[in-house]
């Protein structure tokens, strides 16, 4: 049985096709979201790659901020539950999931069976989210994927003290004007995200193992800063950004089996 999970996030659309609730047949990440053809492109891609048609899909679950807008789903499930399911699938010992997406940060507490028992999310402020990194990368004229590389070169990490994205932007510009090295600045930016989200994580309680999911998890600069901040090893999977879509696909399998 094939099931499809679609995660319609604030900046990207992700899709995963799963066979029998175990094997990932195909996956896709498209940088486009609600109000664009991003969702259909992500779905077309996974169908094409797997050689399946829509009729072959036994169940579809939509998750993410755009979940209510996708009409082709059998169920709409929050990204909280989906990330918990997805992470449990790839890391069965995970007790805490830190998911940093485009516009929010979430920390989920899982029980021994991988079920989410509590969660906290960031407030309405964009600090500590992917959007914060986007804004900073833009000022530094770097691609978001370069942040990780630059952070690794840091010698004297700069402290970015402003929580507010707009204020932090001014702070980074001032540092640039003062001639601060880019790697030191980038490492400070990654540290700022980690510090902000770590305080959320402490609120819900840290249970090892700690797994990072979501798009920002791809950035080793943030992962390393988070490990240092929390004093624990951070678990990671190359498909971290797809955990929501994977969880959605698992949920669909659970409902249809």
């Amino acid at each position, binding site marked *: 049985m094939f099931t499809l999970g679609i995660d319609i996030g604030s900046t990207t659309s992700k899709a995963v096709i799963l066979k029998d609730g175990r094997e990932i047949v195909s996956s896709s990440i498209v940088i486009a979201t609600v109000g664009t053809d991003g969702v259909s492109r992500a779905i077309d891609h996974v169908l094409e790659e797997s050689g399946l048609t829509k009729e072959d899909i036994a169940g579809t679950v939509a998750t993410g*901020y755009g979940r209510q807008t996708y009409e082709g789903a059998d169920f709409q499930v929050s990204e909280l539950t989906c990330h918990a399911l997805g992470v449990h699938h790839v890391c069965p010992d995970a007790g805490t999931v830190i998911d940093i997406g485009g516009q929010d940060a979430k920390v989920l507490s899982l029980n021994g069976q991988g079920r*989410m028992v*509590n969660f906290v999310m960031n407030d309405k402020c964009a600090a500590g989210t992917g959007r914060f990194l986007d804004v900073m990368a833009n000022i530094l004229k770097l691609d978001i994927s370069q942040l990780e590389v630059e952070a690794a070169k840091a010698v004297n990490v700069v402290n970015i003290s402003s929580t507010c994205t707009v204020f932090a932007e001014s702070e980074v510009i001032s540092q640039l004007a003062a001639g601060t090295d880019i790697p030191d600045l980038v490492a400070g930016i990654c540290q700022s995200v980690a510090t902000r989200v770590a305080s959320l994580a402490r609120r819900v309680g840290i249970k090892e193992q700690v797994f990072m999911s979501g798009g920002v998890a791809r950035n080793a600069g943030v992962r390393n800063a988070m490990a240092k901040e929390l004093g624990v090893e951070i678990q990671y999977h190359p498909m971290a950004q797809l955990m929501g879509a994977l969880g959605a696909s698992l949920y669909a399998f659970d409902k249809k089996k």
Partner: protein
Amino acid sequence: MAEEVKKSRPAPDPNSAKFKLGQIAAKAYSDAMEAKKRGEKIGWCASNFPVEIPATLGLYVCYPENQAAGIAARGGGERMCNVSEGDGYSNDICAYARISLAYAKLKEAPEQDMPMPDFMLCCNNICNCMIKWYENIAKELNIPMIMIDIPFNPDYEVSDAETEYIKAQFWDAIHQLEEITGKKWTDEQFKKVMEYSGRASRAWIEATSQAKYVPSPFNGFDLLNHMAVMVTARGTAQAGDAMETLLKEYIDNHEKGVSTFRAEEKYRIMFEGIACWPWLRVTSTGLKSRGINMVTTIYADAFGFIYDDFDGMCRAYANVPNCMNLEHSRDKRVKLCRENHVEGLLVHTNRSCKLWSGFMPEMSRQIGEACGIPVTSFDGDQADPRNFSEAQYDTRVQGLMEIMEANKGGNE
């Protein structure tokens, strides 16, 4: 093309609690308007000021908090906030204060008018922002302000010393009001008002406690509307009558197996914080569409003032939610959660209310732990619509529901 036929709503039953309570709330404003026209002196009064004092003296008072909530619920919050922010007030201060300060300047609001005040009655047992808010209005309008200081109580119980401190201020307030208005205090009238207040309070607490039944005979959002009467008119005979009608209706609902919650009650939560008035429909629908009934709130307890004498009244006003310590506040809520079979806690992080929201992360953590229930919070505001995101609210509520569902064994 077929002509659209508009169905007219059936006339409300004049004997229903909803009708009676609506009439009392509306009459509180119209009575004050008429009294003002007759030349009587009108007060603006804090919601936790001892209403028994103006009621015993036969004074008409209006409640800026109630007015601000009404203006916000009817869509005027942002407009009014912009007026006061334009005058230099920070958008970090309470939106009720900003709306009220704007009203004091404009002297009209299509959403809810009320007569301009001749004196201000302030009591800081609800918050300290109110002191400056009322002082500024008193200064702008050149009218007297009576201030009763009931400080935040770091202890669990109200001490005799605190009671004495409050009692002296209550008598001082009474004498000041006698001087300002020419009205006279009598112990006989106070006794009557105390009885009315007690009758309304007992019926209110008993009515809200009917949520102990599963399913609950009412939608908890009803309480947010009905409590207006407990704020503005609890010292009247009509309030007691209407609250007893409400209680009877809830008992009847339970016996007949019906509810004012118009959906299948799948989950039961406690809602913490002041309602997000500008987004009341959105916040209510987000719950109802998922079968989540908000069965209780601290308001069920907050406006029930039961006491036997003047000293008891002083103690009661020192024991209101916003001036009691974290442990006492937590225990009251834990009791409500347990008695009403609550399965989850939804916390409104109200950007207007630093006092209430400030200790909420720790308090809600303790409540969640004590009751074994999941807790989530969302950002919002009691009156400023700009501090709320519908998508964020929706995700948090759905996440809460999914945990409650899993706790029931629905998605193990």
